[in-house]
């Protein structure tokens, strides 16, 4: 069962109409030739999808980014890489199931892929803790990124998390320290790092695998310091004000590109990545290939210097008149 978002209702209705017409004409010859009619409707559908999806506001984007059918990290792995071999554990007593990491082939090149996995069915969701990682997940990610550095492999990270897990055990095991250490370490890795926000970029839990040479965002993904719900309940003291909060937070890919926080937006198939996993993966693969090719030309020293420079520039300050 496909989940329909509020703003998709009209699209869905038209899709159903087209589908019905097609099956009708296939079933009964007496319907006559309605190819023209169907073509016209299909054109209308494309236009409608385009109009709706190119004007999504912050909260709508958040819903698309969290869409249950949206491709997850493992879907991209399947469609982009070959010979993926998952590696496990942080080597300090933690398994870290919310983050998946392992070796893979990108074309003829070995790479390390790391990313949040939210889980699709309920059982997997629970096993993955809905993509909210414990410190062990971040430490596993760091361990494997260090391995990538050792063997001169590029790192590709997939960001898709509501945030780092807020739990007692997470705090006891040093959630803050794990996130901080990842950023501290990723900044100086002597291999190319590409980070892609594929769904939800939830605050520190996202940034913990989000320091790299290129930051890409899928067209309908979001990236924010706090969730619209969290922001609404703190600043508006009303958790229903998610629309206003999402707008105020400027969490869309367009905003972040304008702010120069990200480097590139990867277009999604018409109507969102959840409508065509394969097509979404093909587009991302193309973007990854171009970026990797560029980064491979840069010497490690220079790579680190440019990365440091990139993050040094983040932020907006002005000198007030004293």
């Amino acid at each position, binding site marked *: 069962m496909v989940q329909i978002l509020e703003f998709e209702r009209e699209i869905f209705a038209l899709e159903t109409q087209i589908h019905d017409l097609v099956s009708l004409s296939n079933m009964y010859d007496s319907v006559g030739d309605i190819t023209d009619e169907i073509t016209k409707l299909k054109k209308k559908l494309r236009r409608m999808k385009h109009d709706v999806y190119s004007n999504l506001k912050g909260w709508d984007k958040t819903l698309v980014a969290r869409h249950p059918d949206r491709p997850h990290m493992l879907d991209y792995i399947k469609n982009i890489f070959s010979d993926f071999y998952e590696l496990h554990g942080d080597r300090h007593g933690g398994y870290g199931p919310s983050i998946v990491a392992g070796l893979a082939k990108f074309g003829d090149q070995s790479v390390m892929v790391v990313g949040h996995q939210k889980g699709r069915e309920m059982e997997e969701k629970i096993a993955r803790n809905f993509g909210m990682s414990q410190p062990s997940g971040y430490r596993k990610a760091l361990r494997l990124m260090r391995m990538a550095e050792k063997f001169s492999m590029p790192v590709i990270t997939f960001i898709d998390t509501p945030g*780092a*897990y*807020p*739990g*007692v055990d*997470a*705090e*006891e*095991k*040093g*959630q*803050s*320290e794990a*996130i*901080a*250490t990842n*950023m*501290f*370490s990723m*900044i*100086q890795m002597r291999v190319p790092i590409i980070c892609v926000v594929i769904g939800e970029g939830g*605050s*520190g839990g996202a*940034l913990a695998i*989000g*320091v790299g040479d290129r930051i890409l965002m899928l067209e309908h993904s979001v*990236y*924010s*310091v*706090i969730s619209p719900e969290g*922001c609404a309940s*703190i*600043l*508006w003291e009303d958790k229903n004000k998610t629309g*206003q*909060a999402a707008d*105020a*937070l*400027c*969490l869309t890919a367009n*905003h*972040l590109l304008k*702010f120069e*926080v990200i480097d590139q937006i990867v277009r999604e198939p018409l109507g969102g990545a959840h409508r065509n996993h394969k097509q979404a993966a093909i587009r991302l693969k193309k973007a990854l290939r171009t970026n990797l090719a560029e980064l491979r030309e840069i010497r490690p020293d220079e790579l680190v210097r440019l990365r*440091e420079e990139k*993050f*040094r520039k*983040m*932020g*907006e*300050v*002005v*000198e*007030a*008149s*004293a």
Partner: protein
Amino acid sequence: MSWLDKIIGKKPTKDEDLWVSCKKCKEQIYVSELEDNLKVCPKCEYHFRLDARQRIQMLIDPESFIEHDQNLTSPDPLKFKDTKKYKERMRATIKKNQTNDAIIAGSGVMEGISVELAVFDFSFMGGSMGSVVGEKITRSIERAIENHVPIIIVSCSGGARMQEGIFSLMQMAKTSSALQKLSEKKIPYISILTDPTMGGVSASFSMLGDIILAEPGALIGFAGPRVIEQTIKQKLPKGFQRAEFQLEHGLIDDVVHRKDMKSTLVRLLNMLQNTPQEEPKEEEKIPKLTNPPEVLGA
């Protein structure tokens, strides 16, 4: 009321100006007595929140503090507005606090040791970190590198500042990145955590100190206790996320009483900087082995 006011005879008019109730033991304390005791309850040792200026006074030798970057302010890049405009909130806070943002940074001397010091000001929007806080911390770190002096950061913050959105988040990466450079130069960084040190502040530079000290009872953590309670639907154990709890869980080096903070810092900095800087002279060098040593049992 400060001791100076007492001497010049400025009379408080209301009872609450004279007395304050300890938040922990409920003891009634003379405000002047509390001030003289570095804002620590004389009965139960509860550490009241300390103003940034008072903190600097407590740590730095008199008249040695030179403030930097005090005019940096946020241009409000998101044009953020909730029930009120961020610009207006900020204008009001700046006027009230006489500071431009939630941190004071500068250079100073601690018993003869030159240091860079950055101190959070909780009264400025909960000590939240936006671009200005991140920039001032980064510049402090860069000054520490340039002048080859240790850096001390005193955190007191609810976390990242929502009103600057993604820019606030990126300050975590920016400050952590600057600390990597500092670390490569082997310059000491001591992080002091005071009540509270939460969210994006704890999940970046605060937890990256070569040495991490905390004041007694300080709340330290990534997620706030309320958020955790809502998530796990359980009451939290007593003392959860307090400094002593974090010490027990191996996340900080020590819990230090406010009155001992300066002497502890001086002691630690002296030890950290006592390493020989110069190459040993030729004759002192251990001669290279010409033959490989015998393999010892593993």
